[in-house]
């Protein structure tokens, strides 16, 4: 079972098309690192992306340096996964 301890999901609100393409560039800059849960679509829609713990510092620096406003939607994915597995085990019992 892959472990996602420390991985976070960042919610980014791109102001315009230019900022959206900066986000799309991330897929090329960090191949197989950034996992878009809600892919860059249009300025009115948020972009949610899962970032591995090891990449957090780089990615946040990239967002800040390009003036991309973001919030932390999920602080530690593994915490939610543990809760989900516990709920399944409890239900099974």
């Amino acid at each position, binding site marked *: 079972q892959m472990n996602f301890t420390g991985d976070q999901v960042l919610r980014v609100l791109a102001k315009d098309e230019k900022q959206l393409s900066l986000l799309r560039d991330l897929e090329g800059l960090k191949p*197989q690192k950034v*996992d*878009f*849960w*809600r892919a*860059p679509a249009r300025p009115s829609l948020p972009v949610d992306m899962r970032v591995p713990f090891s990449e957090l510092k780089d990615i946040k620096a990239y967002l800040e340096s390009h003036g991309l406003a973001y919030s932390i939607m999920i602080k530690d*994915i593994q915490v939610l996964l543990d809760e*989900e597995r516990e709920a399944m085990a409890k239900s099974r019992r």
Partner: protein
Amino acid sequence: LERSTSSFSYSSYHTLEEIYSWIDNFVTEHSDMVSKIQIGSSFENRSILVLKFSTGGSQRPAIWIDAGIHSREWITHATGIWTAKKIVSEYGKDPVLTDILKAMDIFIELVTNPDGFAFTHSMNRLWRKNKSTRPGIFCIGVDLNRNWKSGFGGNGSNANPCSETYHGPSPQSEPEVAAIVDFITTHGNFKALISIHSYSQMLMYPYGKSLEPVSNEKELYYLAKDAVKALHEVHGIHYIFGSISTTLYLASGITVDWAYDSGIKYAFSFELRDTGRYGFLLPATQIIPTAQETWMAILTIMEHTLKHPY
């Protein structure tokens, strides 16, 4: 494993084995209306199962509902299971559903990507694609919602096998997609198709492959409007709606475009909850409310299909 569906928890997530065991119990308990059809086998040779709801007749006009084409979207399988149970419990009580089933059949594919779904339980909870591998290709899996013939390989899909939206080597190269294509094409009388995804609370219709409106776009727009209104009235959840390319983004090789281009005029794609706290990790406590509201939208679409034969 459960001995009957009565002890099955509809407000919990389940493994593939538990779902397939539930299917067998469910079919046994409702054999007057429900049957199980294996439409093919997945890349890793798991059965691909469809539930058929029919009150008689043969080759009746039909409605297709699929869930779980992206395996990490667990809320979709859970919603599909609850919906199946709802159909058998409401038949004979709900006049709209009863009229639908007196004239049409309903087919539900609960786990459209069984290999990926099993993988989310065993190894990687956030796996999206199927598990196909090919000689010389380093990354595993194809995005099954980019592998359909309509617009294959266009904008909004990726030729890079390591991408999450990798379209695969050719249209319908994936057994999970080919099985549905063969089944729906052979049946030849499907009138509506609903493909259930998560998350972002949207109800969308073709096209994804281009900005060009479909011929009955106005009809689909107002039907989607009615459906999201019915959904909102249950728990107050807001959905946006419209064509995929104008509401979300360009996406090529997708299920609903293939369905529409194959003559199924009422083709819709749901993006269920989450509102933006949990994403794909929607807590199990939200399964029932999500299924309840989705049911009202699905019923709206099915009723429209019944009343507008073509």
